[in-house]
């Protein structure tokens, strides 16, 4: 009996907090028919927002993947003073509010920021345009690949790499033929997490974008914009697109996670 009660409590909590709200948004998006929802997704603004979100992901994910693998190697394979500090610094984006991240970028690249004057003189605009949004997205999704790759690197050790080196492989060959294949599932898992974070970023991008519909509006900003304009169907439809992306991410996570943990 106690077992059933526990199971029921846990499932009821999850249903009330997760399953029902998310399921209900799907209902709300399609309650006026699929046609209406589709129309609100094919407006120029919505289309632009969708592609802009994809662009942000396409910029942030590759950069943070390369950084993540390199940083993982540095953290695990090298010994130097201040290593603990570097490790803590990598985790900073987890501890910092997205709003603070947006503010930080404004203080650097904004009109009165540290580099603001120089940038203005050279006609480069970062804040309220795409480069600023890309920087914000990179910042928030920075730690994921490192955090997946570092424990794997520690686990596989250096024996195989040393063997490859004694057999005459160059460091690059060793990396691509020995190290990378050994950590590939960890990298894949990290990439999925990075993608999810980049797709969903709202706070930091909201501050640095200026929110110009059809220009600097990502899909998450579009959801807010539609909601504030009382276009609920538009807001729910865009939210459903994002939720579907999130569910796809979950499926990918389940695909990679067991492999990342056992490889």
């Amino acid at each position: 009996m106690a077992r059933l009660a526990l199971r029921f409590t846990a499932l009821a909590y999850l249903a009330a907090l997760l399953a029902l709200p998310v399921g209900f948004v799907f209902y709300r998006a399609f309650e006026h028919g699929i046609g209406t929802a589709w129309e609100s997704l094919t407006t120029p603004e919505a289309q632009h927002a969708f592609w802009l979100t994809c662009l942000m992901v396409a910029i942030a994910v590759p950069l943070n993947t390369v950084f993540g693998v390199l940083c993982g190697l540095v953290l695990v394979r090298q010994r130097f003073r201040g290593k603990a500090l570097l490790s803590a610094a990598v985790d900073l984006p987890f501890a910092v509010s997205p709003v603070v991240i947006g503010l930080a970028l404004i203080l650097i690249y904004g009109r009165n920021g540290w580099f603001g004057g120089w940038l203005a003189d050279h006609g480069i605009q970062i804040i309220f345009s795409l480069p600023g949004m890309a920087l914000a997205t990179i910042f928030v999704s920075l730690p994921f690949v490192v955090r997946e790759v570092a424990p794997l690197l520690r686990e596989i050790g250096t024996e195989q790499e040393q063997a490859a080196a004694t057999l005459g492989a160059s460091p690059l060959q060793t990396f691509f033929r020995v190290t990378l294949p050994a950590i590939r599932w960890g990298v894949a898992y990290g990439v999925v997490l990075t993608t999810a974070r980049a797709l969903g970023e709202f706070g930091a991008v909201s501050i640095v974008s200026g929110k110009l519909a059809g220009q600097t509006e990502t899909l998450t900003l579009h959801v807010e914009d539609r909601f504030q304009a009382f276009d609920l169907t538009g807001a729910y439809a865009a939210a459903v697109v994002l939720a579907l992306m999130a569910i796809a991410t979950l499926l990918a996570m389940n695909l990679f996670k067991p492999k990342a943990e056992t490889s």
Partner: protein
Amino acid sequence: MVLVYLSVIALIPLAAVVSRSADAGLGGFWDAVSTPQAVAALRLTVVASFVVVAINAVAGTLIAWVLVRDEFPGKGIVNSLIDLPFALPTIVAGLTLLALYGPKGPVGVNLAFTRASVGLALLFVTLPFVVRAVQPVLLELDRDMEEAAESLGARRRTVFRRIILPSLTPAILAGSALGFARAVGEFGSLVLLTGNIPFKTQAASVFIFSQVESDDVTGAAAVSVVLLAISLLVLLAMGWLSRRAVRNGG
């Protein structure tokens, strides 16, 4: 190279926040963070985060327990559902909660624009932390001790309190620390749901946002620094507590 990238992307901008907050001197910093509205926002954020983290420490442990020790059809689906708050964009999280628990919601409770809505949003986004921290520990846990205790006549409640809970405490604390840091900085899920009424439902992150919008960047930086300090402090404290629990329990 790693260091350069990290500095350009993260460290230099954060240094700019700290330096900007000190622009008006210590007095100016204090003035900015001690305005009634800033104090109310910071207090709401800290209190709500503590309450939410406490609730999810219990609920998260319970869910992890059910997922590890219980068998029922659909367990795999429930297990992957736990990560949904990590994958779902926060603005969508806010919108979904608003659709169900807001005005014109089908359940007939309207939490929108109340203090409870702040808690609701934070409960949603911090749910996975404790579950995901406790689950692996529970899986690894040796059942022998429990069985020994039971054969010696200990009641289930006693077994849980004296044998299982001490081994889980470090994981619960670690998960709670991450959840707390997340709750303190949360923004996206609050924007639509809470209405951001000053002195009532305006959390610190939303307060910072409104200050940036009204061009009070120095004030925003000062409150940001306080927020940063709070989440770093809690992360450190929980790390210390969980190390102590490992020593005492192990």
